[in-house]
């Protein structure tokens, strides 16, 4: 079954079986392996991508459901080697250790801060409750998100 969508501003068209999730399609068909798949039932948040401007679990979205959408993955957040303000804040605050959960956290926060650049720490904490990180204890992630808000207030990087 054919599904056609844009990913990171590139038009793609893929022949998939209905059971293939968007996450598996991104990784295995389109070789965008920055999106990480872990729990495969929506609990861990690692596979989160941005579909039509909204954070979405790519393990709970079928590739065929993505037909006609515009998708941004972790590969689309940076401009080549130039990191986005959110990514720079993550590096500055050491907001990752093993990095497995990081693509999902960056895409989640990118969508959330684009919609809510004035979010307070409590709101950021509530959003991050949907992304499991076993390394950092979240303190450094929250510090990075708080710092990145100013870039989103200035209208940063809606790719």
């Amino acid at each position: 079954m054919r599904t056609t969508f844009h990913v990171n501003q590139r038009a793609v068209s893929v022949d998939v079986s209905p059971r293939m999730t968007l996450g598996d399609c991104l990784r295995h068909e389109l070789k965008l392996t920055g999106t990480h798949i872990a729990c495969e039932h929506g609990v861990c948040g690692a596979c989160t991508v941005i579909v039509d401007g909204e954070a979405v679990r790519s393990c709970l979205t079928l590739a065929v459901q993505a037909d006609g959408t515009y998708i941004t993955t972790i590969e689309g957040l940076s401009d080549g080697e130039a990191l986005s303000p959110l990514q720079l804040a993550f590096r500055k605050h050491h907001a990752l250790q093993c990095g497995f959960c990081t693509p999902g956290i960056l895409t989640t926060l990118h969508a959330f801060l684009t919609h809510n650049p004035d979010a307070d720490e409590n709101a950021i904490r509530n959003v991050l409750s949907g992304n499991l990180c076993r390394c950092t204890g979240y303190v450094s992630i929250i510090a990075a998100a708080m710092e990145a808000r100013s870039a989103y207030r200035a209208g940063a990087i809606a790719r």
Partner: protein
Amino acid sequence: MKLPPFDYASPTSITDAVALLAAGKGEARLLAGGQSLLPVMAFRLANPALLIDMRKIPDLQTIAVDDRGVRLGALVRWCDIANSPALKKALPLLPNAIEHVAHYAIQTRGTVGGSLGHADPAAEFPGLAVTCDAMIEIEGSAGRREMPANTLFTGPLQTSLGHDDIIVAIRFPPWPADRKWAFEEFSRRHGDFALAAIAVFYDLDDSGRIANAHVGVIAATDKPTRLPTAEAALNGQMPNSECFIAASEAAAQACNPSADIHASADYRRSLVRTLLTRALRKTLN
């Protein structure tokens, strides 16, 4: 786990979707946001031969507010409710309670119709539907009909829907502006399923006494239910600690929760008591 194999259809009308469901003879399932159905399929607790995606069916994403109350199309998502200024006025209990539904990236896909059809006893929305005396609009092979929310749910993950029935919309009755209400939930982590939750509202009569009390319990019973004995302990009373505590005790006695790895039955019953007291105190603010 990866999903089991299935066929996929995305009809463009309710009529076509009903026909596909009828032809599926119980082996076809509707796909709305997929935030409950796809995990259940990943666990092999469901194995439908055909998924009928509702995303191309028009007019199911509408939030309508008028003097007859609030009508939500089946594909209204949690984030649509959270972002609706009209609902904050017309049915304030709803957006307040919806804050507890799952996580940010689930709220962008999960739908009210999907939640009703999935009928998880620990889910907030079915409990709100029952507590608020909502009516469910259904279309099936025999045409369109309505049923009260409390007759939709028959047990954990079970409804009275026929295999060719589609939940089209849900209607909430009008909500007086001065109604007293509160929602209280306890879960281990923000966005997790409730270990127990309470939705409560009442009106005050001319003498300042409680009237029309509605107390609904979520996650501590095998389906969302109102608690008549707790409501009786409130109706006709002045809103004060004495009747709040009596109602909370009645609520705890009325619940017969099941135990699982998340909480014992006694703990859940204790939560019901505590959460209802908290909720009732909150109605005074």
